[in-house]
């Protein structure tokens, strides 16, 4: 079974933005100051009484003087040397030790990996700053000691990062290829993998820089970094505290500079990481644009299309699209249907044809942003578009209920079955806890769950897939819905369980006089249980009609192909299972003309240019969108590729769907 095709926006080519540029500029400024501190025309940082003590900015001292009359700017520039020097040294030391260890762990895996990572976890189990304090307390405070301690403390983080990247790359084709060609392990590791680790490592180096600058600052603040007379930022903040009330700038200048520097390192590292981290790029939430659900179009008034009472469910010209980088992805493109009580409508089509999105669109369960939706959904004549989110929630779960494909993910793993099943009863029906549990017990029994009382107390992971699906069905039925939407309710289940679940749904529909919308790509399921069928392709309805007629004599060529692709268990085992050639079209740029034409063996010139509309067939209630429908045009008159679909079994009517 193909997974539902998701529309993933093309990898975003994000520009760096002004924040990134400002951050780089600031870092360049600080680095420049650190490098040229001796060359600049600044007073010596250690000389006292270069001017009045505790003055604010003056022409001679752009950032003022401190309590001893030393020049603050000069001290900042010299302090930058310590911060950046220790930072750079620690980053390289950590990378030098952690990099190779991570490469080895990620490349060789197995025992080597386990030993390295266990050691790593143990080292990580120490509070870093306290460890640094202790070592410096005993070994003495000097640039060398501070640098070595902070560098060593960074090793575990480096091992972890490099190992992760290596693990990811060791599986890629070019590495496997190099290995098959007989390259030695160490050669592959250094030639093929190490270069790919460089980019993530660079982004990480900036983040580690930020951490080390803060750590060095902390030690300096405690008086345990480089000793006087060398100025340090942390030390300056500590000294400035004594003059907080008289000269705020003495503490403010190093504080602001330190904050900006750490922020800049974090910002640059973060942006670079976003560029290299594959997982991150797809998850960036869309910026909010226009309102999620558009106001109904001009013809908002519910136009009853026929005499008599309005149908139970009436969907009119529903459109749903997602704004992406590549343009609007039209997942549902003008779908209409009506449904009466006690009947089942099946929606069929390949994965990615818009079936599931149709359900979500009808129920208004679309993501919050980047969505365009138009059209109408009438429930007993009332246009649901007129309901606000609050009123819509009164319909959801009570009159319209839903069952999803995968029972493994449809239940909350950390809540008991009981809380989940009783929740709609308590919210919508305002039942007490005891009442709700009693009702839930009856519900579970009615969907064929033995020992309902025990099941209510258990968690989803303790139950089988079939049981879970019965529970989601019980949940859906709890408030006596009028329409049940079942989105591929059996796809994720065992074949034997599939039948039971379908029979259960069918029986419940009859007993409760509900209407059911059954989404499936399994035609055998549909043939047995549906009254009417709509066939979707690329977001559009391409054929609709009563189930028997549609299955015995499809008109649209896509329907025909779908039926051929359905496995027929009664066929001799040596017969070939046919597939529909090609892939469903790109919904952001569907092909011109008939959307199926690139894959249709019967396509002619007209199919490529003109889009066929749904036209009524001679059989009542049936319509199709095809220029050259099956059973009308002699097949031998078709152009290229006609043989592909008709070679084995020309008689469509003989295809069986029992399975």
């Amino acid at each position, binding site marked *: 079974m193909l997974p539902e095709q998701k529309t993933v926006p093309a990898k975003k080519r994000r520009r760096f933005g002004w924040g990134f540029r400002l951050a780089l500029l600031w870092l360049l400024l600080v680095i420049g100051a650190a490098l040229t501190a001796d060359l600049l025309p600044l007073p010596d940082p250690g000389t006292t009484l270069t001017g009045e003590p505790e003055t604010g900015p003056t022409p001679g001292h752009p950032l003022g003087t401190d309590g001893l009359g030393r020049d603050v700017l000069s001290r900042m520039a010299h302090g930058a040397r310590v911060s950046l020097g220790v930072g750079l040294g620690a980053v390289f030391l950590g990378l030098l030790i952690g990099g190779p260890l991570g490469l080895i762990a990620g490349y060789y895996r197995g025992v080597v990996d386990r030993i390295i990572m266990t050691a790593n976890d*143990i080292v990580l189990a120490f509070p870093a*700053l*306290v460890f640094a304090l202790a070592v410096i307390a005993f070994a003495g405070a000097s640039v060398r000691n501070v640098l070595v301690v902070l560098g060593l403390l960074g090793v575990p983080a480096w091992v972890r990062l490099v190992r992760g990247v290596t693990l990811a790359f060791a599986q890629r084709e070019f590495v496997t290829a190099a290995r098959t060609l007989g390259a030695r392990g160490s050669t592959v590791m250094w030639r093929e993998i190490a270069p790919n680790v460089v980019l993530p490592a660079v982004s990480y180096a900036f983040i580690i820089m930020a951490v080390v600058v803060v750590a060095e600052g902390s030690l300096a603040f405690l008086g345990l970094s480089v000793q006087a007379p060398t100025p340090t930022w942390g030390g300056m903040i500590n000294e400035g505290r004594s003059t907080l009330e008289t000269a705020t700038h003495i503490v403010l200048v190093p504080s602001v500079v330190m904050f900006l520097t750490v922020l800049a390192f974090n910002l640059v590292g973060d942006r670079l990481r976003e560029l290299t981290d594959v997982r991150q790029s797809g998850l960036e939430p869309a910026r909010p644009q226009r309102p999620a659900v558009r106001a109904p179009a001009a013809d908002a008034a519910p136009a009853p299309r026929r005499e008599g009472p309005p149908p139970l469910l009436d969907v009119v010209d529903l459109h749903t699209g997602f704004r992406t980088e590549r343009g609007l992805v039209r997942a549902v493109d003008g779908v209409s249907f009506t449904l009466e009580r006690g009947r089942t409508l099946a929606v069929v089509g390949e994965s990615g044809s818009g079936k599931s999105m149709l359900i979500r669109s009808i129920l208004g369960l679309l993501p919050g942003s980047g969505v365009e939706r138009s059209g109408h959904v009438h429930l007993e004549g009332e246009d649901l578009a007129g309901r606000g989110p*609050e009123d819509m929630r009164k319909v959801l779960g009570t009159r319209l209920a839903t069952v999803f494909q995968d029972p493994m993910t449809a239940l909350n793993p*950390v*809540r008991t079955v009981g809380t989940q099943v009783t929740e709609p009863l308590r919210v919508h029906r305002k039942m007490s806890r005891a009442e709700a549990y009693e009702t839930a017990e009856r519900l579970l029994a009615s969907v064929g769950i033995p020992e309902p009382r025990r099941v209510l107390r258990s968690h989803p992971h303790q139950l089988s897939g079939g049981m879970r699906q019965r529970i989601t069905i019980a949940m859906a039925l709890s408030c006596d819905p009028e329409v049940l939407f079942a989105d591929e309710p059996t796809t994720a289940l065992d074949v034997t369980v599939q039948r039971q679940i379908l029979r259960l749904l069918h029986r419940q529909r009859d007993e409760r006089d509900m209407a059911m919308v059954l989404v499936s790509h399994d035609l055998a399921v549909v043939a047995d249980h549906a009254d009417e069928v709509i066939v979707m392709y690329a977001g559009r309805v391409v054929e609709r009609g009563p189930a028997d007629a549609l299955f015995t004599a499809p008109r649209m060529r896509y329907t025909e192909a779908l039926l051929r692709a359905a496995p027929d268990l009664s066929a001799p085992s040596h017969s070939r299972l046919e597939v529909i050639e090609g892939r469903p079209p790109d919904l952001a740029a569907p092909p011109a003309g008939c959307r199926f034409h690139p894959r249709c063996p019967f396509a002619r010139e007209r199919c490529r240019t003109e889009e066929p509309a749904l036209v009524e067939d001679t059989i009542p209630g049936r319509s199709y969108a095809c220029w050259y429908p099956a059973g009308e045009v002699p097949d031998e008159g078709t152009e290229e590729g006609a043989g592909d679909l008709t070679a084995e079994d020309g008689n469509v009517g003989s295809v069986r769907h029992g399975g």
Partner: protein
Amino acid sequence: MALVVLRRLAQLIFVLLVVTLLAFWMINLLPGDPAMQILGYGGDEAALAQVRAELGLNDPFWSRYADWLGGVVTGDLGTSYISSIPVAESLADRLPVTIELLVLSQVISLGLAIPAGLAAARRAGGLLDRVLTTTSFGLLSTPVFVSGVVLIMVFAVRWPLLPATGYTPFTTDPVENLRSLLLPSLTLAAGQLAVYARLLRSDLIATLQEDYITLARARGLSPRRILWRHALRPSAISLVTVIGLNLGALIGGAVIIEMLFGLPGVGRLIVDSIFARDYLVVQGGVLLVAVGYVVVNFAIDLLYGLLDPRIRHAS
């Protein structure tokens, strides 16, 4: 579950052994003669010999470690040569202050981070989300001693609402006690708050894309109910792990906070002892902090199992 606990317990004991070994070995980092360093330079030959004998410096490393470890297990961390107070006693005096600071800051940061994370995740990409994300990025980049100095400047110097330094024990005056700890805990909470809010936000955004959330919406439940009852609990589980991992940074921050605000906690005792060259106190303090860290993480690991039914039921 019992098996998991046993395995973790074995791991805990191993890590504790490594921790004690490191703490013990630290004395060896002292340059020159440790006995001379410990006594300061005024000691005479007889006193030096006595210290050497007491510390067992003449014995081989491993037998010294075994002796020392035996003492540690029975609560004997030695006696300071400077104050003549047993190390364990000074630590016990200071510990409540540090624990109160840590607990208070965690309560503040979680109390703010959970609503912030929920609000940001509810409309990911919205205005509130962007404001919160930017703010937490800024907080994350602020060293504690910078945010502490700024808070002192605003709330103690500019508008003298709260004391800048000093500590009142809870038993003396509960209100003053809270007032004296408010600024320190706020400072310590600021950085943690950013870490937690960011994590919770991204975890919630992932949880909100789960099928069971869409189905909860399909059942007509309100966004508030879905966030608090359906999404928060699965996401809270990963938050708990991070609280454990974060403890190291928290303890480091506490040392600085205690110095900055003049709180008589364990961190300040360690730093003061470093300057006083009271090495046995430093050793004992570091050991206490490391052991506390490892044990709390062990407890959090167990809690994690209790919170997640999938782990709880795994036998």
